[in-house]
């Protein structure tokens, strides 16, 4: 029983960190649907660096750095060139899918390092994730840079006439956003499941993306959502931990996605949007062009 909870927390950590990154980007108006791609890059590069140098620290730094680079790439297309964010995000996913399979192939197999110590089965990254959530909340809602970031996500032209550098603020957020996604990938490949395999993520990034909408762009709701989805995901991987005799795990595997669709359907109803609808950043997905 405890094993199930511990594993759920560990799974939720990955959702939490990746989705927090996406949330930061979306709060500034930039949507990156290629979370999965950024995570694949972070995971693969982190894995390779850690395996060749034998250093976890270098592995994580590499994961974060490659995430930042992916974030900057997304920024270049969607901020500087003003391209379609969804199309570009899909490009990042496909690029990540293909390129990491190619780069990582020779490293297929286990990491071969001593496991990162855990606390009663719970990864230290779970606690790190909670700290990151709290810090992100504080920065977003209590600091000047957070106010600027939220403002460029709501209405960049208002921010501009108030003296905010919209382009710089959006770059800052989209690069930070990429760093979180890279880190989430690193946590997956170096701690949660330290074995490299072809397309090993299989949808974690997309669930993280959905979680941001689910969270109403609030980091604390995101924390709750991550834990819920972590548990559902874990259930789909090892249902036997909780139920002795159960339906196929392939059925359980659909549960997180069914819940996601259900939650998103609920959120798009008039009933919901009239109560909570104001949360969505108004300029989300829209490139900013000066008149």
């Amino acid at each position, binding site marked *: 029983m405890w094993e199930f909870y511990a594993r759920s927390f560990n799974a939720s950590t990955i959702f939490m960190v990746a989705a927090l990154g996406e949330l930061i980007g979306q709060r500034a108006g930039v949507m990156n649907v290629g979370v999965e791609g950024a995570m694949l890059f972070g995971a693969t590069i982190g894995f390779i660096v850690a395996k060749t140098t034998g250093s976890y620290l270098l592995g994580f730094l590499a994961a974060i750095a490659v995430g930042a680079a992916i974030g900057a790439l997304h920024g270049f297309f969607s901020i500087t060139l003003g391209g379609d964010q969804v199309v570009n995000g899909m490009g990042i996913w496909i690029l990540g899918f293909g390129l990491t399979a190619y780069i990582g192939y020779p490293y297929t197999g286990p990491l071969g390092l001593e496991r990162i110590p855990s606390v009663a089965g719970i990864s230290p990254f779970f606690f790190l994730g909670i700290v990151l959530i709290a810090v992100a909340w504080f920065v977003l809602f209590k600091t*000047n840079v957070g*106010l600027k970031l939220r403002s460029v996500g709501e209405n960049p032209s*208002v*921010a501009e*006439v*108030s003296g905010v550098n919209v382009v710089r603020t959006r770059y800052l957020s989209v690069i930070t956003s990429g760093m979180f996604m890279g880190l989430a990938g690193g946590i997956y490949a170096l701690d949660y499941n330290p074995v490299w395999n072809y397309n090993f993520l299989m949808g974690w990034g997309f669930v993280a993306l959905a979680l941001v909408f689910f969270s109403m762009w609030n980091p604390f709701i995101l924390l709750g959502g991550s834990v819920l989805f972590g548990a559902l995901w874990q259930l789909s991987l090892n249902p036997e931990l909780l139920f002795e005799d159960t339906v196929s795990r392939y059925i359980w595997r659909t549960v997180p996605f069914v819940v996601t669709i259900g939650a998103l359907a609920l959120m798009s109803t*008039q009933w919901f949007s009239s109560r909570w609808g104001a949360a969505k950043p*108004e300029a989300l997905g829209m490139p900013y062009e000066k008149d």
Partner: protein
Amino acid sequence: MTDIKHGDIVLAAKGITKRYPGLVANDRIDFEIKAGEIHAILGENGAGKTTLMSILFGLVQPDEGEIYAFGKKVHFRSPLDAIDLGVGMVHQTRKLIPAHTVLENILLGHPKAGTILDMKRAGEEVAQLCKHYNYPLDLNAKVWHLAEGEKQMVEIFKALYRGAKVLIMDEPTSALAPPETEKLLESIQVMTRDELAIVPFITHKLPIVLAVSHRVTILRRGQVVARLDTKQSTEQSLAREMVGRDVIFRLERGKAARGRSILRVENLSAFDDKGAQALTDVSFDVHEGEIFGIAGVSGNGQQALAEVLAGLRKAKSGRVLFDDAEISHLTSLQRWQKGIGYIPAEQRTVGSIGNFSLVENMLMNYHFDDAFSKWGFLNEKKARQLTEALIAEYGVATPSPDVKARGLSGGNLQKLILARVFSRKPRLIIVNLPTQGLDVGATEFVQNKLLEARKSGAGILLISEDLDEILALSDRIAPIYEGKFMDVIPAESAVRETIGALMAGLEKKAAA
């Protein structure tokens, strides 16, 4: 504000010229404003007001000419330069973030906001400002909760908190209910006592100019045509300078035979786009040969009402009857065919298709007519003839009927839409904000057309936030506030102040 003395010239523009391809938007304009002065700039659309305003705020750089702030020559490369030198701008379309609180909006971009926002200190300072100008504001309220007048004050306080000594205000009283306008005018008069300089840019609403300003500069076709002391001018003299000819302010409404009831609305309720209740239990009727005026500040349910009647929005409950037959279930097209015409407030997005030619736009109300489309083929020749005839009849200024609608000015586009709808001789016309953003000349034209339609027996539902327009045109007036009619008042017994107060939700129906 200690180093500025009353009467010092705080901002001056000398010989400002700005050319655009085929057009001199500003032609050697001189302008100055003194501390403690209200200096209005008047002009019709296209007179060069927007260009001048953009130049004074650093959004646009002039081709020639100089700007002086506090006696020193300055060069505004961006609005930020202007803000730093004490020039604040109050925009017509509010530059505020609705999802953020009042205080967050005021602090956004403030150079002294600090790394970690000191909300407490800033809150106290802004509250002090509110107190000084006797305008209480809940600083922690989200901006989307505020009334239009309050939002404008937030913009003003934002500029003042940032140290503005000159306030440029773009159409400051548009979208305000009359009591809000009075409050605003009071506040800006207090501000002049603190040696602030205020530059309102105004297209119409001339009485307001006369009420508060000290001096007026009038632009026409990019040039300064007059500089007047307000004391020595009248509404007529200002309008004459603006338009270049005499303008009649008293519209001759005349008598029209009020016929039978043509539209009946019973207990109508509807939601807005966000799913909030926009319209609650509204009942009224419109007769033939009558203009039924709905007076209200935008955002009080008029939009939902117009869309429900035009068949563009589903009602939540209630009935709509046309000619005593229920039409609630009819599509927009079926309503057109029955003789219900709709002139929407959004000329560019609902009233026309920018990338279509004028002929194609004209067809938007004729494509269902057998004379213009048979077996799926459009009769282009006929459509073209019709468009040409209507362009001539309505005086739409355009080089050809083949230009795209997006190229027309607001006034000309509205004439085209009017021509399209009126030429179908509808028996009921629903018209929303018909003269919004139009200059004095075009406004006069549109209002006369509405009166003509009334005279020929059409029933007209006029929705407007311009109380003067409502009073001038309507036979009966219904002030609307938060989705409800506050009263229905016959024109003979309409009192301006009472309707103004009802529009702001101040008095309940008790008066009636």
